[in-house]
């Protein structure tokens, strides 16, 4: 069953990925448009992309390091990296899951490959992520955390991260059109996920019998790999890293499969 399904899944993923050049152009345009109009009518503009994670980082630092006295080494870096990566995932998926509905005007009137809309939503979050990454590197610099050669793993981790976010978005976006519950459910899932993922606290604070929770949580794995690469200068255990990639890939394949199955009748569901 699994072996028969796999080529099927792969062909769907390929189908979704194979797009005419002008559609890639369109994806970029959609993403940039949303990015441009996001901060119109605000005085600080793009600074909000930076301020938001910074403010929360300071807040969490105050609560968990000063008040509750977590003893995590290099906590500012630990914290900001977790927040930046998690925020990207949260923004990309909530953009992505809602994208077909928010862009219903275009989806129901223009004969675009529908995945263009979802890709653009994720790319839009990636643009914000690019800005916050700058903050991240500033914090690393200020705290004197040295970047080692292991940092080159970070882009690979990002590939997994984007695959995961795309997979979730492709899976849930068409379902969201049909059942608006999906939107609310995903909002809750993100809240739950945030507290079940070691963004604020350290993995070692979790009792061993709960460690399986981390193993099956792709975001915990991705954030862990990111910290290894950028903060601790540790090369990953490639087998573990491979499993992370496999999880992200499977989510992306399932997402593509469902998306492809649903996209033909999408217009009728609105």
């Amino acid at each position: 069953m699994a072996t028969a399904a796999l080529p099927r899944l792969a062909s769907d993923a390929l189908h979704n990925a194979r797009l005419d050049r002008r559609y890639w152009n369109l994806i970029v345009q959609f993403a940039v448009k949303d990015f441009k109009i996001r901060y119109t009518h605000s005085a600080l503009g793009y600074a909000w992309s930076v301020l938001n994670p910074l403010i929360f980082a300071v807040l969490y630092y105050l609560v968990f390091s000063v008040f509750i006295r977590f003893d995590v080494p290099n906590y500012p870096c630990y914290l900001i990296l977790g927040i930046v990566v998690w925020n990207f995932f949260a923004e990309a998926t909530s953009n992505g899951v809602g994208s077909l509905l928010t862009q219903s005007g275009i989806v129901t009137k223009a004969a675009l490959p529908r995945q263009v809309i979802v890709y653009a939503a994720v790319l839009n979050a990636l643009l914000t992520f690019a800005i916050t990454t700058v903050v991240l590197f500033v914090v690393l610099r200020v705290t004197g955390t040295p970047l080692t050669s292991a940092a080159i793993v970070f882009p690979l981790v990002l590939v997994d991260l984007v695959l995961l976010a795309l997979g979730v978005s492709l899976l849930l976006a068409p379902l969201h059109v049909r059942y608006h519950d999906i939107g609310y459910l995903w909002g809750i899932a993100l809240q739950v996920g945030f507290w079940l993922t070691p963004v604020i606290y350290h993995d070692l604070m979790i009792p061993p019998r709960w460690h399986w929770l981390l193993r099956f949580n792709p975001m915990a794995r991705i954030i862990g790999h990111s910290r290894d690469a950028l903060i601790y200068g540790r090369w990953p255990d490639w087998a573990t890293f491979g499993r992370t990639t496999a999880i992200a890939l499977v989510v992306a394949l399932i997402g593509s499969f469902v998306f492809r199955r649903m996209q033909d009748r999408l217009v009728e569901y609105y």
Partner: protein
Amino acid sequence: MTDAAIEVRGVSKTYRIPHERHTTLLERILARFRPPGFEELAALRDVTFSLPTGSFVGVIGANGSGKSTLLKLLAGLLVPDAGEVVVRGTVAPLLELGLGFHNELTVAENIALYGSVLGYPPHAMRERVEEAVAFAELERFRDAKLKSLSSGMLMRLAFATALRAEADILLLDEVLAVGDARFQQKCFDVFADLKRRRRTIVLVSHDLASVQRFCDRVLWLHEGRLAMDGDAETVVKLYLAMSRADTLRRAGERPAAGAARSVPAGPVHRWGSGAVQFEDGCLEREDGTPLGSVQSGQRVVLRLAARAHAAVEALAVGFIVKQLGALGGHVIYSTNNQLLGRPLGTLRPGDRLVMRFAFQAALLDGHYALHVIAASAATGDIEIFDWINDYVTFTVEGSRCHEGVADLGAEFHYEVPGARPAVARS
């Protein structure tokens, strides 16, 4: 067969419309345990046609006859339940103007975005943006945010962008009624140009005058079926005739003989107290013979028969002429027997009256409708006995001019003051 740009073979499309009439919470909960009820709505039934490359095709039909569904199938937005849709070439579906326009972006940015949605090639984008800005006559506003434009400017911009879509096949849904008369003329010129460049165009419209003007061929959809497929002239005429018969049937009357009686689809209604009711009516020649289409300037007679069902004093019978189509809606002419100085006496119940209005059809080519009215102004308040919209419709042909509604019978004379006979020069 291979040069067909669009082939539609045995296509059917059915929508499921779920019944959602759960008013109370309990009903809603109970509904979860019942199989959901739904109604099937056959939007298209077994439609087959093929359009060669370069054809300009109109799709007409009453509301809900499946026109938009057909267009969405051609655009690839919907998938047919049965049959096959083959489209050869790139398609620009212009089902809605200003798709994806955003108020916070500038005019130029919006064109670039809309252009991408419609499939402009990226390399030609800059040039096309300038072209569209120029066509919409918005050069001054090129870098202004969209929100500072008037709604008319917005429509012009949307249309200008849409018409420059570089596609083999254009699907236009009811987009003609845009802009002022001058801009409309410009758009018509673009249509003519597209036609010359052998683009395949499918136009869905209620504006029969435009359909007749541009389309070489017309598809008439009736309740999801392809009722007729043929040259524009014939199909539009039959469509009008058929709609008229349909309206009369609905009004509980039998269609009378006479080719010049036909009515377009639309909100036709009849109202009044019923003290006097029209029983028959048609346009005919002055010698009383039936009339096909009306020659521009011809004298015609509107013959009306009415019956009184109550005692009526100072009956006024009149008619209103309106044009159908793009410029339609306004009254071209109206009169009644009292205005014409021919008052009618008292009618007793059961009296039947046959009336003739002779008038000159000084109209330009197009479709026209007559509303007929029987009323009384005897008591001071006007009482409407019977008012029927679009009671008679007719087509005028053979006018010497093309723009406008009325033939004012212009004549042309000229002289060259002070000029000597040409032979005097050498």
